[in-house]
């Protein structure tokens, strides 16, 4: 089974994608071997960040490939295979949460609203910083991600972000999409988009300072 390999070039030249995506022509047969080797790790990695049970995460990745195979006729190659597979996986993760007996913890509007008020509270009513003093602590962040404890804190902080925001971050940092594409796909104005990024960064800053930098202070 063969895929026609082609360099995937984006219409927008703003962002240069560092990974060369393999694009299949609409009528080409999906090469299972190739797709598993290209995308299984990324998909599983992502599933693990969303689902605590490793077995379940693996099952969902398997189901993702299965769904993709079964509906390969509908994959027209308009997006990259990676994007397509990730959207299938994300839907499966959502379905998993919805049907999980543990109960759906998300009332997404409430989560976003509470996250917004947390980020607002970082400033007083004049718009000045409420909390301060951690500027210097960020200077030695060189090899932080080599530190497992930090990685755990970081994961924890990511968990605190609303699902919608994490979704956008995934599209930006994992799928390497540019702002225009993200805005169009999610029905956001540019202004909404950078405001979400802004709030997400404020929350990350706050979370990392409280959970990491504070304890590093001698």
């Amino acid at each position: 089974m063969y895929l026609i390999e082609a360099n995937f070039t984006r219409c927008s030249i703003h962002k240069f994608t560092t990974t060369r995506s393999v694009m299949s022509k609409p009528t080409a047969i999906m090469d299972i071997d190739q797709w598993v080797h290209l995308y299984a790790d990324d998909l599983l990695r992502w599933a693990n960040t969303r689902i605590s049970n490793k077995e379940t995460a693996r099952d969902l990745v398997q189901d993702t490939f299965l769904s993709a195979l079964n509906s390969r006729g509908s994959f027209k190659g308009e997006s990259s295979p990676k994007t397509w597979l990730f959207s299938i996986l994300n839907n499966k993760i959502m379905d998993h949460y919805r049907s999980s007996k543990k109960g759906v913890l998300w009332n997404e509007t409430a989560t976003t609203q509470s996250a917004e008020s947390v980020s607002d509270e970082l400033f007083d009513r004049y718009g000045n910083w409420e909390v301060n003093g951690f500027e210097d602590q960020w200077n030695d962040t060189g090899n932080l991600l080599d530190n497992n404890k930090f990685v755990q804190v970081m994961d924890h902080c990511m968990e605190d972000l609303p699902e919608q925001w994490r979704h956008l971050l995934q599209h930006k940092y994992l799928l390497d999409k540019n702002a225009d594409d993200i805005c169009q796909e999610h029905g956001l104005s540019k202004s909404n988009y950078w405001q979400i990024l802004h709030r997400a960064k404020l929350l990350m800053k706050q979370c990392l300072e409280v959970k990491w930098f504070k304890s590093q202070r001698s």
Partner: protein
Amino acid sequence: MSFLMLSCKKATELIEKQQVTPLGWVEKIQLSSHLSMCRACSAYKTQSKKIDQLWRVHHQMPGQEIMSDAEKKELVEFLKKNL
């Protein structure tokens, strides 16, 4: 408050906005003026870049293989069977 004086909240917004879309010339002046006077927001600008890097690595985790070749082969076999 003079039109040049941004709040820190507004300044941090512009720092992010700048990453996505170019600022107007008034915004540029307001922001650089604020940053020259505000240590916390200058620090925030650096922190913002660091978070950007952290997010990038967090999402891409280069080189970290979590499915062994054997497991991938198994998956491929399973998928082929269920075609």
